[in-house]
């Protein structure tokens, strides 16, 4: 999946992955995709809830070893 921006949040603990995600999304245009890599397992539920409450869309999630990968699309 192609992304417009990449955020490496590996090794960061809550709340930093969401803080960084929010910051990165603020600098993006509608419909652009942000790819995020994290190692904090709790991030998945938090990101799912956060995208819902902010009108963004979680389009894809993958797990590779200890790394969780997400692609989110910025809402209109």
């Amino acid at each position, binding site marked *: 999946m192609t992304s417009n921006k990449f955020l490496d949040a590996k090794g960061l*603990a*809550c*709340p930093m992955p*969401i803080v960084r995600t929010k910051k990165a999304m603020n600098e993006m245009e509608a419909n652009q995709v942000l790819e995020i890599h994290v190692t904090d*397992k709790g991030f998945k*539920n*938090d990101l799912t*809830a956060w995208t819902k*409450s902010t009108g963004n869309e979680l389009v894809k999630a993958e797990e590779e070893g200890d790394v969780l990968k997400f692609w989110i699309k910025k809402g209109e």
Partner: protein
Amino acid sequence: MLTGMTAKEVAKMVKNKEDLFILDVRNQSDYQDWKIEGEKVSSINVPYFDLLDGVEGVLKQLPTDNKLLVVCAKEGSSKFVAEQLVEAGLQDVSYLEGGMKSWSEHLEQVLVYADEQLKVYQYLRMGKGCLSYMVISGEEALVVDPSRFTDVYMEAAKQEGAKITHIVDSHLHADHISGGKTLADQTGAAYYMMKSEGAVFDFMPFEEHDRIRFAHVDLRVLAVKTPGHTPGSVSFFVNDKLLFSGDTIFVGGLGRPDLGGKVQEWAKDLYDTVYEKIAAMADDVIVLPGHYANLDQEVNAAGYVGAELGAIRAGNELMNQQDKQAFVDQVVANAQTETPPNFEEIIAINRGVDVASPERQQELEIGPNRCALHHTH
């Protein structure tokens, strides 16, 4: 001023029924799944990611006269939010050290019973609703349904000048990882459980050892041995006085059917246990269960979860003069379908079929304890 509060301190407040207001900043689904509860505990849920731009929105929902505790999964986000609350002028703000993970792991030791020959402690795991016990007599100790925090029991035994020599599991737990095998390895104690539960390591099967005696302790195993069936749970009757009821009887009622889909058989076994064995026991027998569902309702004046058998019998129509089929029908109708989180993996670990790192064990155990959420009344 911002201070950390430990799970132990929270447990004290819950038990002592002190006022506590909790701002839980986890996501909504985690909060709905399980949270810190108590008679004088009130809580609201506002996810930390809704507070990244400031806490002004939540201030008016928070009390100004009560102690405020901010809670999250591990700690980081609660600290992050709590710091902002202090900056916004709130006075008495704490965060939960180690978050819900540490809450899930805290064991609170309470003295249940003591006479010249015997001393019994209960270990309340408030974050899970699980109970474990230690029976001390002379220089020996027996542990019932140990959690994986084996150092707690070893330290307590040491304080009492006793050595752990016997460990019993009332059933193969599906909601938490048993510390039985680890504790047996660490202490050299004999570890007992039902062979029919399918553990693959070496242990002493109750099928061949239905009585354990040491010092002044005489423990009898109450089990309904029905070949081909998964037995739900065995109980332990100590000195004709204390009934460690495992998953058979709770303060609030009878146990829930097992998770293996054999609800009918389980209910019949439960009937036989209740009517053939427990019916013969005296009213003043103290029932000490393996779980509780509602701490405020099930904790007694002495501060432990338990009740006299007579009181439980009186409050439970299922235990009084029921026809077997009616009993089974009722238990089956009340069977709950929700399973504890990760129960298949937890069962595999408790059988010794699977091995998990401490981190993995921690993750598997996080969450609600659905074994105890709904009792069969």
